Structure formats: structure tokens, C-alpha cells
């Protein structure tokens, strides 16, 4: 029984991997072929991981579970807006390379996301 459960879990993660990879690649390719670059940048914040994850969440746990995920996703998206502005400014003002700027700024995203989650919890 434990083995069957582990096999099911493994299958779920394989499905997640391929579905996520496919949707992310589709949005990224769309971003590649559109100009100007600032417009193509919109696709850097496309709901690719969200579509794959929420689809699986609805299928596995039901609409209520996906609703909880989408509620806190709003906080993650707010943090993503802040993150993108920080990355943009870092590259323009400090002349950091893209990889360094995007990785360093992940700290900003984590702090903003969990800070907002904490505040939302405190308000609720």
C-alpha cells in the first residue's frame, strides 16, 4: 500500500514536471516572438506555473483547495511586481548582470511574499 502511494506520488510529480515545463515554454516562446521588449516582458509574469499547479490542485483536492492557493497567490504576485522593479533598477543602476540581479532579488521576493502572508494572517 505504501509502495502504491509512493508510486502515485511519483507519477503526480512527473505529470507536474512535464505540464509545468510545457506551459512555461509556451508562454516563454510567445514572449520571444513579440516586440517591443517591454511588451514581451509581460510574459515573464505569465500565469504558467499557476495554470499547471491550480489545474492539478482542482483535480486532486477540489475547488476549495485551489481557492486557498489563489488567495495567497495574490500576495505572491504583489511581491513579484516589487521583485521585477528591483531587478530592473539593479541592472540599470548597478550594472549587475541579469543572472546575478535576478538571483539576488529573489531575497526581496521571499521577504515581501512571507511579509505579506504574515500581515494578511495578522489582519485575518
Amino acid at each position, binding site marked *: 500500500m505504501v509502495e502504491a502511494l509512493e508510486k502515485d506520488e511519483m507519477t503526480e510529480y512527473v505529470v507536474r514536471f512535464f505540464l509545468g515545463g510545457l506551459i512555461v515554454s509556451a508562454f516563454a516562446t510567445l514572449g520571444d*516572438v513579440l516586440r517591443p521588449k517591454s511588451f514581451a516582458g509581460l510574459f515573464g509574469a505569465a*500565469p504558467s*506555473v499557476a495554470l499547471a499547479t491550480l489545474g492539478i490542485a482542482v483535480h486532486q483536492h477540489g475547488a476549495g483547495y*485551489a481557492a486557498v492557493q489563489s488567495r495567497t497567490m495574490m500576495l505572491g*504576485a504583489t511581491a513579484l511586481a516589487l521583485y521585477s522593479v528591483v531587478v530592473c533598477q539593479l541592472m540599470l543602476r548597478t550594472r549587475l548582470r541579469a543572472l546575478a540581479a535576478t538571483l539576488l532579488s529573489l531575497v526581496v521576493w521571499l521577504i515581501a511574499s512571507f511579509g505579506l502572508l504574515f500581515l494578511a494572517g495578522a489582519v485575518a
Partner: protein
Amino acid sequence: MTPIRFSPSSLRAGRWYEYVIRFVLGGAATVFTGLVSSRFGAATGGLFLAIPAIFCASATLIENHEMRRKHEAGLAGKRRGQAAAALDGAGASLGAIGLFAFAAVFFVLVENGISAAFVAASLAWAIVSVAAWYGRRKWRSVRGPRR
């Protein structure tokens, strides 16, 4: 006339392994979000639906493509590459407003109809993102270039 153009020739600038990296990163981010949700709960996992992992890869690729193009023309291209990646970041910040709209619409509709929630949320992302982009463009043209 719309300023948005379709440029399929940009696909030729990419190398095959760059597309593989994106696929793997996208898959890994989705698996990671699933792991966080199952270990720490749906609320914490929901934050990671807006994880900027893909943006990291895209910005790096854009910078590399610009630098490669400039190298081929005999120029250094480092500044140009950084500027192109920074522009991508400016676009992503507007896309994040659309992502907020996606989550809000999905949250409101999902318990009434799953397919409708996915369609309406995706439309909300597209409409809000494009509107924000147009709004910024208009604001910049009214304000004029920075000195």
C-alpha cells in the same frame, strides 16, 4: 497603428539547450510549488504560484541574445544586453499586476465553475497586463523622455 509586432526571426537567435533549460526550470518550479503545498499547506504553496523562476531564465537569455548579436557586429554589447534585460523586467512588473488579477478572478469564480474560472482568470491576466503596458506607454509619451 499598434506598436506590438510579431517577430518569428527571434526564435533563430536561441540555442536548443536554452529551450531545454527553460523547460526544465518550468517543470522544476511546478514540482517545487507542489512540494511546498503538500509540506506547508495550500496557503504557503499559493505564494509560489507567482515565483519568479522563469523570469530569471528569460532575463538571462535576453541579455545573452543581445550580447551575442552585438558581438557578431564587432561590439562589446554588455550595456545593450543589460538594458534589454532591464526592459524585460519593466514589462514583468506590469505582467505581475495582471497576475494579481488572474489570482483574484480565479479566487472569486473557482467554487462556482472550474472551467469558467480558468478562462476568465486567463483573460483577466491578458487584459490587465496589456492595459497596464499601454497605460505606461501613454504616460511615458505624455511625460516625455527623461533628462
